[in-house]
């Protein structure tokens, strides 16, 4: 597997211009000869499909939901970063780049991250023009707020619904292209396999979720924008339908999988209330701007939070990280919560929770200002828990939220397979070992609106319009394989439901490959996963609704892939014998419990190549070199 990142020559700020200058183009009248398949309709997918449609390519866009507007980007609450420096607080492209690189604990590519910071400003321009109702100051200018991991105020937001508004902007642009006939939308359609011929991605196999019919689409390029794989943990903040099947199938067809163990645990989620829990709900991190995180100082203190006097509270984030305090990055805040709960200070059912207290802010700026900023979040909290956050401190606990790992891509967002591009959370590119808040929306839109429409032309121009013959055996084989897998699942006649199996895998992974990992735990997980998998294959019960609309069948298909993915994650976590960002190996910590990175041995991207026949995957390494910013210890003290 060749890992050439194809980073343009020249100094960091000039690299993106250099790529635009040297790239091949496709002429306007030739673009309609190319068919591009976009899988996923979230921020990255919808923006890419719309932009490519505007350029004149023939685009097919696929989503498993009933409408592209429902993609899970819609649930992002907090905001989107950009280096506009509207606040005059010393922000710049360089600083956004630096913060993102440092936030990722120096496990991302300098050139990609710098480009992301450059493009960030264009995104805001474009979204404003689209009519995104960003928050405004009384003077009519755009408002910003600060977010975890940054000392400047650079996060643009639309109440607590920034993701929704940005997604609807992209969705509307997409629907405009649907209307003009440039894009064909295929909703309720799930990708089951990638079709590869002669080392090139040539199409996809899909299943119509309503009728259960299988079919194939041929294209000159395939773009995967299918989001992350956080649902491998069973409980996460991802939508119920989010899954890893598209990227996993692409991986099995030859696309390298990079840094699978880098998963972000979000510090501010509503704690689970019982085993019936179907998903975890996130409270925007922006609450940490005005909320203070604390636990009682005394172990097993059962008093109501308001009865605990200030000097008996431990504001542990402020104590341990005086500079960043409650705004410490996500991985640090999450781990700190876990540690403090492991010590027995946790609050709420099972002692799995810490307080996030708005009391001080309520007294400082008043209830109406707090409502203005977080009104809908607090309403949501009250609805779920039945407690009033204006009076009682909220209880929060970390939950799986985002996966920094994903399919490996080069500077042009092309995977290790020609013709296969991967955008947004589905790729690994920009966040290193940890993502900063309000950067996911930025990356998704950067990839979809501005990067892939420019970089895809070179690959298309080189190959020429050459749709693969529909009778090619590659299509037949892929379809047959997908059908066989479904038939196997449908034929299962065991006793345990999909959810039952799924819960067990999720719990195992959360235990051993969650916030803290160790060689012992990971090795145990690696032994256990194949056992769980064979139990799943042997003892599964699916409701007898056959091949048509059948959510259990879909979930069983996703789960079948998760076993393999979970194994790869543990393998990668074991291989990465250091602590960095969200990846915390218990063996590698400073005496006071901070992560200890090992740049000498692990300053690389770990890229895994699938091998057929049950052989273990092969590890390749893309070395990371830091020319502009020498790696420093990531400290937020």
């Amino acid at each position, binding site marked *: 597997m060749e890992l050439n990142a194809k980073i343009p020559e020249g100094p960091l700020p000039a690299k993106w211009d250099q790529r635009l200058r040297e790239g091949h183009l496709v002429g306007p009248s030739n673009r309609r000869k190319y068919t591009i398949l976009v899988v996923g309709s979230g921020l990255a997918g919808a923006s890419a499909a719309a932009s490519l449609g505007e350029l004149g390519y023939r685009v097919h866009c696929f989503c498993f939901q009933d409408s592209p507007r429902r*993609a899970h980007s819609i649930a992002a609450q907090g905001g989107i970063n950009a280096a506009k420096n509207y606040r005059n607080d010393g922000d710049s492209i360089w600083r956004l780049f630096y913060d993102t690189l440092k936030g990722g604990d120096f496990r991302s590519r300098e050139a990609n991250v710098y480009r992301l910071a450059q493009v960030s400003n264009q995104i805001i321009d474009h979204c404003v023009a689209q009519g995104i109702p960003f928050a405004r100051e009384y003077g009519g200018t755009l408002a910003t707020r600060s977010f975890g991991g940054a000392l400047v105020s650079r996060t643009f937001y639309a109440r607590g619904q920034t993701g*929704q508004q940005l997604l609807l902007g992209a969705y509307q642009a997409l629907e405009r292209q649907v209307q003009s006939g440039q894009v064909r939308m295929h909703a309720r359609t799930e990708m089951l396999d990638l079709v590869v011929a002669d080392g090139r991605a040539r199409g996809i196999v899909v299943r119509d979720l309503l009728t259960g019919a299988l079919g194939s689409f041929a294209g000159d390029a395939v773009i995967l924008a299918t989001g992350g794989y956080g649902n491998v943990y069973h409980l996460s903040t991802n939508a119920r339908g989010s899954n890893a099947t598209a990227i996993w199938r692409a991986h099995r067809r030859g696309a390298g999988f990079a840094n699978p163990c880098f998963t972000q645990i979000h510090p501010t989620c509503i704690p689970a*209330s019982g085993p019936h829990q179907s998903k975890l709900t996130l409270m925007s991190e922006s609450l940490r701007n005005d909320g203070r995180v604390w636990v009682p100082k005394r172990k097993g203190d059962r008093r109501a939070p308001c009865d605990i006097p200030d000097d008996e509270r431990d504001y542990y984030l402020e104590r341990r990280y005086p500079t960043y305090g409650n705004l410490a990055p996500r991985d640090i805040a999450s781990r700190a919560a876990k540690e403090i709960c492991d010590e027995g200070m946790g609050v709420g059912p099972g002692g799995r929770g810490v307080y996030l207290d708005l009391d001080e802010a309520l007294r400082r700026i008043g209830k109406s200002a707090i409502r203005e900023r977080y009104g809908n979040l607090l309403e949501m909290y009250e609805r779920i828990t039945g407690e009033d956050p204006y009076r009682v401190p909220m209880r929060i606990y970390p939950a799986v939220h985002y996966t920094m790992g994903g399919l490996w891509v080069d500077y042009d967002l092309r995977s290790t397979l020609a013709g296969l591009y991967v955008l947004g959370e589905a790729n690994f590119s920009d966040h290193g070992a940890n993502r900063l808040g309000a950067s996911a929306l930025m990356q998704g839109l950067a990839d979809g609106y501005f990067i892939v429409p420019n970089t895809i032309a070179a690959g298309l121009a080189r190959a020429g319009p050459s749709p693969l013959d529909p009778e090619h055996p590659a299509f037949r084989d892929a379809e047959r394989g997908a059908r066989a897998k479904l038939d196997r699942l449908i034929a299962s006649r065991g006793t345990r439901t999909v959810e039952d199996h799924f819960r067990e895998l999720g719990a195992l992974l959360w235990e051993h490959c969650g916030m803290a990992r160790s060689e012992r735990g990971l090795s145990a997980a690696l032994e256990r996963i194949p056992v769980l998998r064979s139990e799943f294959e042997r003892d599964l019960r699916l409701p007898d609704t056959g091949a048509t609309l059948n959510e259990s069948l879909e979930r069983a298909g996703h789960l079948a892939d998760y076993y393999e993915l979970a194994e790869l994650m543990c393998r990668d976590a074991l291989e990465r014998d250091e602590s960095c960002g969200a990846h915390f190996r218990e063996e590698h910590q400073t005496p006071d419990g901070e992560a200890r990175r090992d740049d000498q041995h692990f300053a690389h991207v770990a890229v895994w190549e699938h091998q057929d026949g049950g052989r273990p995957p092969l590890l390749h390494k893309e070395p990371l070199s830091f020319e502009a910013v020498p790696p420093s210890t990531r400290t937020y003290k």
Partner: protein
Amino acid sequence: MNFVLQLWRQKNPRAEGAFSRYEVGGITPDMSFLEMLDTLNEQLASKGEAPVAFESDCREGICGSCGVMINGAAHGPIGGTTVCQLYMRHFSDGEELVIEPWRARAFPVLRDLIVDRSAFDRIISAGGFISVPTGAAPEASSALVPKQGADAAMDSAACIGCGACVAACPNASAALFVGAKLSHLGLLPQGQPERARRALAMVARMDDEGFGNCSWHGECQAACPKSISIDTIARTSRDWSRAKLAAGRRSTPDRTNDSVSEP
């Protein structure tokens, strides 16, 4: 908690549907309505019966996938929420719940509680956008938007496209959905150039999809999980009438632009 469910079961769009009665037990007050349905489905699955098909995705009230009628109320009795964020503590133990899909000609039932809402996508694609190709945008701060205008636009933009407005309307009208989008874009300066065209196109498409008309019952606003105001429907009437009058004067529809700072 235990519940008796009267549930609409329908195999496919062409099949006859009917209500089936189920008893579901082991429900806790902290479960969401959908988790209650999950529990029912697990119980059905372990008996080998076909689970009840219903739609959901984000389960935090923002994607708009879920939605059923519970005892005749869209998204259930408490208002201002979707069914995924409706908790069983709002029901009483032993209660009988009648659960039906959204009913409208424009939303055909696909299976059980799942309906086809692609009509909404087609209404948006008819004109619910601002035509700005990627790359063509001016600097973000070049136009100032008064805070009141931005806030009012955001109020309307909060629509999640769940279809509860149509379901709750005695006429199965999509006026609130259309009004929300027209208001969102029409209240911002960026939306002015296409304001008239947008109103004409979206209203025409709404009618073609077979929705009913607005009789100002206000049921949509009461059912809307985002509490979008029926004021947006009045704005639709205004924008549409102005666009029609302007078109009648044979001037370009673009001349109907008017002031943005409405509220």
